[in-house]
């Protein structure tokens, strides 16, 4: 009996344990409150305007009525073109940095640059995009310029996610392949990439969410407040969900109260659906994990 009696010290440890656990739980709850509030208010006030027509009709009456079709399709354009640019570049850069780059000052400088790129405010990216893509390269205000601006901004996400998932593949696998006479590329293609694809895709989907939601970078470079038609190619301007939300919330008089909430709800739903896809995909791939 007396062997397992709680001592003064045990009692103290138990109280500290309880305190720490409760405190951290509180922090966690605190963290979900804003998210829950945002979703709750959006659904409560935005849901009434949602309808099939809202998604498939163009805005009318100075954007105070009609739907959001042009903005929705515009966002799809912008995201797709941005991915086409950033995913190949980002993955290639990450493969180089993780698998080929020697550990020297240049590599360290590049890594530092990537971290800094991630820290640059989006408005600075917007001005860069305006100068570089709109003016210097002469793409004008277009989907191409907007997407490239977003691609530059989101490159660090792809690079970091890819590099981390490449490095999660055990080094012993690489050595085993090299010892069999495989080149670095053969090793990467047959063993490293197939086993890091889930991490890479997670990074890509994170990037999609970010790209869909950004406003400032596209405002100066290719997104228009209002266009009555869909873009026909990458050199056209387009409407976009994020900018549309900004415009109907602040720039247009006499917008029905529910409309901006509806736009925000659609935008946030797009992002949530993509995140959910990413999580589901990750779970699926984790179950297929091979070591």
């Amino acid at each position, binding site marked *: 009996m007396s062997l397992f009696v709680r001592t003064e010290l045990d009692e103290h440890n138990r109280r500290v344990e309880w305190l720490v656990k409760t405190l951290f739980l509180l922090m966690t709850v605190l963290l979900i409150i804003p998210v829950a509030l945002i979703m709750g208010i959006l659904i409560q006030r935005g849901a009434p305007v949602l309808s099939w027509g809202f998604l498939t009709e163009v805005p009318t009456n100075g954007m105070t009525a009609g739907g959001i079709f042009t903005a929705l399709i515009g966002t799809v354009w912008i995201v797709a073109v941005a991915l086409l640019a950033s995913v190949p570049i980002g993955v290639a850069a990450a493969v180089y940095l993780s698998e080929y780059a020697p550990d020297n000052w240049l590599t360290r400088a590049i890594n530092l640059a990537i971290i800094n790129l991630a820290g640059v405010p989006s408005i600075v990216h917007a001005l860069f995009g305006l100068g570089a893509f709109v003016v210097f390269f002469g793409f004008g205000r277009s989907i191409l310029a907007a997407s490239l601006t977003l691609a530059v901004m989101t490159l660090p996400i792809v690079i970091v996610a890819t590099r981390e998932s490449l490095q999660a593949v055990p080094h012993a696998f690489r050595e085993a392949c090299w*010892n*069999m006479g*495989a080149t670095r590329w053969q090793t990467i293609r047959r063993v490293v990439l197939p*086993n890091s694809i889930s991490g890479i895709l997670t990074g890509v989907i994170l990037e999609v969410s970010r790209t869909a939601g950004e406003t400032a970078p596209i405002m100066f470079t290719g997104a228009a407040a209002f266009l009555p038609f869909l873009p026909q190619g990458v050199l056209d301007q387009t409407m976009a969900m994020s900018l549309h939300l900004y415009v109907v919330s602040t720039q247009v008089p006499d917008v029905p109260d529910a409309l901006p909430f509806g736009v925000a709800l659609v935008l946030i739903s797009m992002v949530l659906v993509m995140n959910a896809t990413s999580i589901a995909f990750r779970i699926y791939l984790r179950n297929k994990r091979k070591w």
Partner: protein
Amino acid sequence: MVDNAPKLSVRNLSVRYGDKQALNGISLDVFPNEIFGIIGPANSGKTSFLRALNRMEEFDPNMTVEGDILFEGQDITAIRNVYALRRKVGVVFPLPVGLPMSIYENVAFAPKLGGIKKKAELDEIVERCLIRAALWDEVKDRLNALGSLLSGGQQQRLTIARALSQNPELLLLDEFSIAVDPVTTMRIEDVLKELKEEITIVLVTNLVQQARRLADRTAFFLESELVETAETEELFSGVVKDQRTRDYVEGRFG
């Protein structure tokens, strides 16, 4: 055996990692169809020796190798086509590494890299190598199962099958029995005895008795130096040039 030309001639080989000397000016010969044992305590340079033989410094910018390594008379320390060298040399690591692919693909990997595409030919290689590595009977019904999910002992035999799949002329084993149960160890040892009819084997081992059971000749490494090389039986019957060898073999340190 000793009347042949050496399969491998190492002259004045030094290996450094940064400032740290791992191997200091060793010279030795390995002859065809022998099992050449290397014994010595931890950090005596045994693994560095194997790494140098397979030109692993290519993948470790920190590692520098000096001296000559002659493979069938040809110096390999300067060749550009290290891939051809590595195909001739099979390596088995201390911890088994089943690649995250099927058992079949593990063994077919190197032949595929070598350009073999015909299914029948690959099937034949996979079966032959798994049989030689004493694993065929246990896995023949589940060749599509993941190699990385086999037990440790099975994975180590899979690693050996994989090393054999590239038809190596030289097989390097680095303390292969560390993560393997005694029964599997004995099975692998039997495999090695059969294999030496066809290929040359360098066996690094931390088990002095394993060297005694398998090796024709044995080298004793200590503190980055080669203390001596001798016929294994002589080494174990006390005919040694250096007192330190006797002490190590008889278990007085190490």
